[in-house]
């Protein structure tokens, strides 16, 4: 059982355990906030518009209405898409300062570029938070989502498919408030024993602190004084998502002026 006053332990968890976490803010031009987040083989692009005008039936008199739209990688809609939307919406409804913007809507659009299905939920939640950070919407706290898979007697955090050999198929996606370290949302898949669930939640809580560091780095990069060419995308090669290799063309991005 997780008790409220459990403090985070010192451990050997470092940034390498969160594999291939690369993100960039402000990638789209027509929306209020946008972010790309790549975690392992899962890449998600999120755009937020808000606060904007809300439809009559969705209008709330005392706060903003959060609308989440999820589009899967192959465009065929299903019930799973609605489940992802529901998790992201319930997380954001708690953390966004909706009372500041009554009778408006905040629309969050999640676009999956590629996925390996396991890390999809946590990547979507984290990418949505990054996009809201980019749009400078007020939030009460920053939630961070982490996926844990128990393998044998260890717990793997955000594992790649190659590392998941030997797992029994169970996984836990946990969303933590990175400030107070309280559990915001939790979704499990597959079979887990009670001890496995407990240890997964504990590891997720520790890893959520690292995700928060990622948020800080992303926002710092956005406001850094280094010249960032708006046409060129991520400035460093190591920020590129692993599967989207940059090829061809003049990458300087200088506008051709005479």
């Amino acid at each position: 059982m997780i008790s409220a006053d459990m403090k985070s332990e010192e451990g050997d968890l470092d940034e390498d355990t969160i594999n291939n976490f690369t993100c960039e803010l402000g990638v789209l031009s027509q929306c209020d906030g946008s972010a790309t987040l790549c975690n392992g083989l899962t890449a998600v692009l999120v755009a937020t518009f808000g606060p904007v005008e809300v439809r009559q039936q969705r209008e709330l008199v005392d706060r903003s209405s959060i609308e989440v739209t999820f589009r899967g990688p192959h465009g065929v809609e299903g019930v799973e898409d609605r489940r992802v939307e529901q998790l992201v919406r319930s997380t954001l409804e708690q953390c966004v300062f909706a009372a500041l913007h009554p009778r408006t809507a905040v629309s969050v659009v999640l676009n999956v570029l590629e996925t390996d299905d396991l890390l999809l939920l946590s990547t979507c939640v984290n990418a949505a938070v990054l996009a809201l950070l980019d749009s400078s919407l007020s939030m009460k706290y920053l939630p961070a989502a982490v996926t844990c898979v128990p393998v044998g007697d260890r717990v793997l955090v955000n594992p790649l498919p190659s590392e998941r050999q030997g797992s029994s198929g169970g996984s836990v996606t946990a969303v933590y408030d990175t400030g107070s370290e309280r559990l915001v949302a939790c979704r499990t898949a597959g079979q887990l024993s009670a001890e496995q669930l407990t240890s997964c939640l504990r590891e997720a809580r520790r890893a959520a602190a690292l995700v928060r560091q990622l948020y800080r780095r992303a926002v710092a990069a956005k406001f850094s004084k280094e010249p960032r060419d708006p046409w060129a995308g991520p400035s460093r090669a190591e920020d590129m998502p692993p599967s989207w290799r940059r090829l061809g063309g003049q990458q300087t991005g200088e506008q051709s002026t005479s």
Partner: protein
Amino acid sequence: MKPLVPSTCETNSVVDAVSKGTRLDGRELLDHREATIQFGREYGTCQIRLGNTRALATVRAELGTPRPSRPNEGTLQVAVDVTSTAAPGADRSNDLTVGLERLLERCLRESRCVDQESLCVVADEKVWQLRLHVELLDLGGNACDAAALAALAALCHFRRPHVSVTGGEVRLCPADEAEPVPLAVLHKPVLVTFAFFGDGQHFVADPTEIEERASEGLLTVGMNSYREICTLHLTGKLLLNKQQVLECTELAAARARSLTSQLRRALTADEAERTAIHPFPGLARVELERMATAAASVRLSGAVRGPALTAEQISEMEKEVDEKLSVFRHKDMAAAAEIGQGGASQWGPPSDDEEGDQDEMWPRTAETPAKTAPAASDSDSEGEQTVLHPEDLEPHAEPGTGKGLRCPMPVR
């Protein structure tokens, strides 16, 4: 969410600027933005960024029945999607989606950019049906050009599975058995858009979204690098004369040439990166298996047509094949480039000039069918195309008969 309505002062300032020969982003009137081409992990996925405009194209292929009017041709279907991320209210805009779909079909399908007859597997029964899906992730102006370039790049990048037809049965070969085959792209058409202002007096190339909204009309020219016009498309309340259209096509020709050479460089670079990751391309593995089959056939074959081989000859040939097989077995993956450096390549198309060796490489069934062990060929690690020969489509015979020992020749 409703789309944003452009303000009057914005549109007026754009028109004023163009009439004075300047643009809001500092470009010259006829300057294009740089296009960035990125290929994805799977074959046939490509993302194009043209300034703020982003288009993502995916090509998928599946086997199906052909259209009754064209029983010998495959099909190419285009679907365009404007995602909600592209602009507020953009996903409700059907005009853009339908217009772009039709424009891409004209530019790519009706101009015969992809050779649809090469997509036929069995006439009247099985053809490849290509589905091209273009997603517009960001509308920063000139979505036509970005979508068309993404679609073209995805078609050039795409590889379909190799198909083997045995008797009446069609079998898809998995990627580790036979290398996927690229599409036959006959020419590479790209779209170039111009926006007109002031009753057609001024025009700009590669308009941004605010210039598009402020313009009176758009002229889209589809051209390939051979200066052939594939598409002409005029929208808006605009009347043009012949001189203006010719001027635009001249500019489009230059842009098409530079875009196609940029695309070619990007494809080459992508191919180099892929084969660098896999030092043993599928083809080398196939050859290994064929050689093993050949060696086994030599041992198994009792009654072979032609002059009987003595036991010494057979064991000699076995030794030869074993030696060459051991090259594959014992060499490291990293040393793949060293294979084949021992001697001249014995692979090559049969020609009248060369005799001797060539005759032995291509035995007629009446002659020595057993001596077909291919040389340790120069299996360089560049991914080469596999060219289908008529022999490849014939059924491989059982070991024990003469025919089974003819190894189809991969062209280097």
